[in-house]
């Protein structure tokens, strides 16, 4: 691990950190893939599939890196397909079922806005692998954020029904926002390498609030918020997602095509 600044003590933190970011991308890619052939338009099928593939590419880099740093011989496939629920480190936001198109776009707006700030910050990481990934991925996620922003505005500032459903979708996903910025032990152990999640919130808030204002939507005031995804605690949604995602690999270990 010559290009990593981490010694053995922080190698575990670096592996955990990369795994968390990789799991976010992997699980959301799986969720978006569920839309294929169900989107409102074939053009939107392609757009969602495109976003999903961008995320899958990020997940592959991050999970391979997590496995390499961990040094236990686990590759991307083993990490994606052979871990159980409690070993996944993604935030709860990406686990939320797709719901209607408004829920999917609300989830995408909040998550992509987070990834934009995250990767912009990671471009300055002293870890060359993370910085390199971030420099490439930041262009992808700016487009994801734009796509979601466009749809949130059209639905929020559209008809009475589309407005009501977009607002309901926002209410549905907002309890998962705080967790994005919760303190993360792995990130805290990697100064200069990782980005402090809390530091991303001001820019995230500025972007999202401007998007909501342009869509005539109201920022929800949730009564609870999710936490703990980064330490392996998840909503029941992940328990339903994983068997479908992992079925093929577990039935045919080592299968390739």
């Amino acid at each position: 691990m010559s290009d990593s600044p981490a010694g053995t003590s922080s190698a575990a933190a670096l592996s955990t950190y990369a795994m968390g970011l990789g799991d976010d991308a992997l699980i959301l890619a799986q969720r978006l893939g569920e839309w294929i052939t169900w989107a409102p338009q074939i053009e939107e099928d392609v757009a969602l599939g495109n976003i999903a593939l961008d995320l899958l590419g990020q997940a592959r880099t991050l999970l391979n890196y997590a496995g390499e740093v961990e040094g236990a011989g686990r590759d991307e496939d083993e990490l994606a397909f052979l871990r159980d629920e409690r070993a996944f480190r993604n935030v709860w936001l990406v686990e939320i079922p797709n719901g209607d198109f408004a829920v999917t776009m609300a989830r995408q707006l909040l998550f992509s806005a987070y990834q934009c700030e995250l990767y912009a910050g990671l471009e300055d990481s002293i870890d060359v692998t993370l910085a390199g990934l971030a420099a490439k991925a930041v262009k992808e996620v700016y487009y994801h954020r734009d796509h979601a922003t466009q749809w949130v505005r059209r639905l929020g500032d559209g008809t009475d029904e589309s407005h009501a459903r977009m607002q309901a979708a926002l209410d549905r996903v907002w309890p998962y926002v705080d967790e994005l910025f919760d303190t993360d032990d792995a990130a805290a152990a990697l100064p200069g390498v990782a980005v402090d999640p809390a530091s991303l919130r001001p820019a995230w808030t500025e972007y999202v609030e401007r998007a909501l204002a342009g869509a005539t939507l109201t920022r929800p005031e949730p009564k609870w918020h999710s936490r703990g995804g980064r330490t392996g605690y998840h909503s029941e949604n992940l328990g339903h997602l994983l068997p479908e995602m992992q079925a093929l690999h577990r039935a045919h270990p080592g299968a390739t095509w």
Partner: protein
Amino acid sequence: MSTGWPLWEVFVRARRGLAHQHVGSLHAPDAEMALRNARDVYTRRGEGVSLWVVASADIAASSPEEKDPFFEPAMDKAYRHPTFYDVPEGVAHL
């Protein structure tokens, strides 16, 4: 399935210096989304550096029935082509 979304014609410029080429069409609710859909449908593999979309309804097109009056008269007038003329001797740089 009729979607109610209008049709858009998509033009891609492959690289600087070339003209935009028509590549196909797609549905989108408005021009902004048409551009984004065009990006996803037609330029995912590095095909272009610039995109135009034009509402198909805004294109004025010649009709197939007018094909003969429009194009036939061009066929038998060889003198409209520069190759019809002999270049006089002694004319340089032509």
